[in-house]
């Protein structure tokens, strides 16, 4: 990489504090083999990472997981992040966010809480997360408001809940969310395992977009809705993570540094660990972060494409998962010779009541070990 192409700072630090989670969501983006990576960083390791990343210009810090509330040092980490000048975000299922901890986090300087819901109804929420958490999430939402945090509600959207979108938006508004993320499922990790259950039809998406547009008018700016479109129904790939090693720095529970939370799956890359390398060297010097930066790594059809600077070839993980070649064009692109892999999956989704190869797989340590063994056979 030449000096002219020196990347900007890692503005976004995502601290995945743990892969442990009380929920078992069928679309979880934690790696399918998460049960293998159970050596969590210590409090001191995390405090050092926070300082080093801030020195390199990180300004948004997300505390995520798994369920970050399972770390009993969360308040210590938030306090240090706040002192260092980060805008601090907690991404939680709400489980464990009781009255004491939410007050302590406020005192520590936590700026914002993103609360996940799986659906607008108790039945579907509890089914999709394989837990009885709907009532608890409603209580936590009220608690977040009572402590005057800004609240982002995040709902992963897919075939099994997309037709409830009117009620989902109504619920978010009634609970007082300032922002609602309707994040259409992206097909990685557990969502990829369950893709044929989760991929909606084009008609479902169009209906959901129309409902969202109607609500936006009606809300008159009271709540902002982000509708993240599902890339399987597009013909050009997304600019994944806004560019490889361009803005985002993810630190996984065991200290592995990644350009996105699923990049660990890519073969032939040696991703550094914060136990061995400074954040500066990870971001600017490591092979893992430099490998897919910019456009120099591309092959055809990307290399000669006049849109290559715009989408940067799409997502490396999606290219690898579907074509087994991490340097291929993202098959979402209609110019990809493997675009049929996407259109075939969408066509299967259109066949109502189509046959699924297996039942829904709920995220959990036992399933993680089973799927890890199967893939290494």
């Amino acid at each position: 990489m030449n000096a002219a192409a020196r990347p900007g700072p890692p503005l976004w630090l995502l601290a995945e504090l743990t892969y442990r989670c009380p929920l078992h969501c069928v679309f979880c983006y934690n790696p399918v083999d998460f049960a293998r990576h159970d050596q969590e960083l210590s409090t001191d390791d995390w405090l050092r990472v926070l300082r080093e990343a801030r020195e390199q210009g990180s300004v948004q810090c997300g505390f995520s997981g798994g369920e970050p509330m399972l770390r009993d040092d969360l308040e210590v980490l938030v306090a240090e992040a706040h002192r260092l000048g980060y805008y601090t975000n907690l991404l939680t299922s709400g489980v464990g966010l009781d009255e004491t901890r939410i007050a302590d986090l406020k005192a520590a300087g936590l700026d914002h809480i993103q609360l996940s819901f799986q659906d607008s109804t108790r039945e579907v929420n509890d089914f999709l997360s394989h837990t009885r958490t709907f009532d608890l999430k409603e209580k936590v939402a009220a608690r977040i408001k009572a402590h005057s945090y800004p609240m982002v509600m995040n709902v992963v959207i897919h075939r099994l809940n997309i037709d409830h979108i009117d009620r989902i938006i109504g619920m978010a508004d009634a609970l007082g969310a300032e922002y609602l993320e309707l994040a259409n499922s992206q097909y990685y990790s557990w969502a990829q395992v369950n893709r044929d259950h989760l991929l909606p039809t084009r008609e479902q998406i169009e209906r959901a977009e129309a409902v969202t547009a109607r609500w936006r008018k009606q809300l008159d700016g009271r709540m902002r809705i982000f509708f993240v479109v599902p890339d399987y129904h597009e013909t050009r790939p997304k600019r994944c993570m806004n560019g490889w090693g361009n803005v985002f720095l993810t630190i996984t529970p065991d200290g592995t540094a990644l350009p996105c939370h699923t990049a660990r799956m890519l073969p032939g890359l040696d991703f550094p660990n914060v136990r061995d390398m400074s954040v500066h060297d990870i971001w600017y010097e490591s092979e893992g972060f430099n490998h897919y930066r910019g456009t120099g790594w591309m092959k055809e059809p990307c290399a000669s494409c006049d849109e290559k600077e715009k989408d940067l070839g799409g997502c490396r993980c999606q290219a690898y998962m579907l074509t087994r070649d991490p340097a291929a064009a993202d098959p979402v692109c209609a110019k990809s010779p493997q675009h049929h892999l996407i259109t075939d999956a969408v066509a299967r989704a259109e066949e109502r009541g189509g046959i699924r190869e297996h039942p829904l797989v709920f995220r959990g340590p036992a399933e993680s070990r089973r799927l890890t063994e199967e893939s290494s056979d």
Partner: protein
Amino acid sequence: MSTGAASDTRPAIGRGFRLQWEAAQDCHVLLYPEGMVKLNQSAGEILKRCDGERDVAAIVADLETSFGASGLEKDVLAFLDMARQQKWVQW
């Protein structure tokens, strides 16, 4: 319907937003849940004076003194109306 900014309006940074100087980016930024706006110099200079105490007349006077300029009120009012729509400021 609320009215636009006027010379006696006392704007403050919007709830949930935070304004700070970022040396690594050499500019003021506005931070909010999971997002960031990079501000150009004039936006940064206006917003850092929005403390909820001073009114627009005082902010304009301070800007005009600091930068040896005059006739800034119209631009400041237009910026504040836009910023309020984005919820960057409130009054």
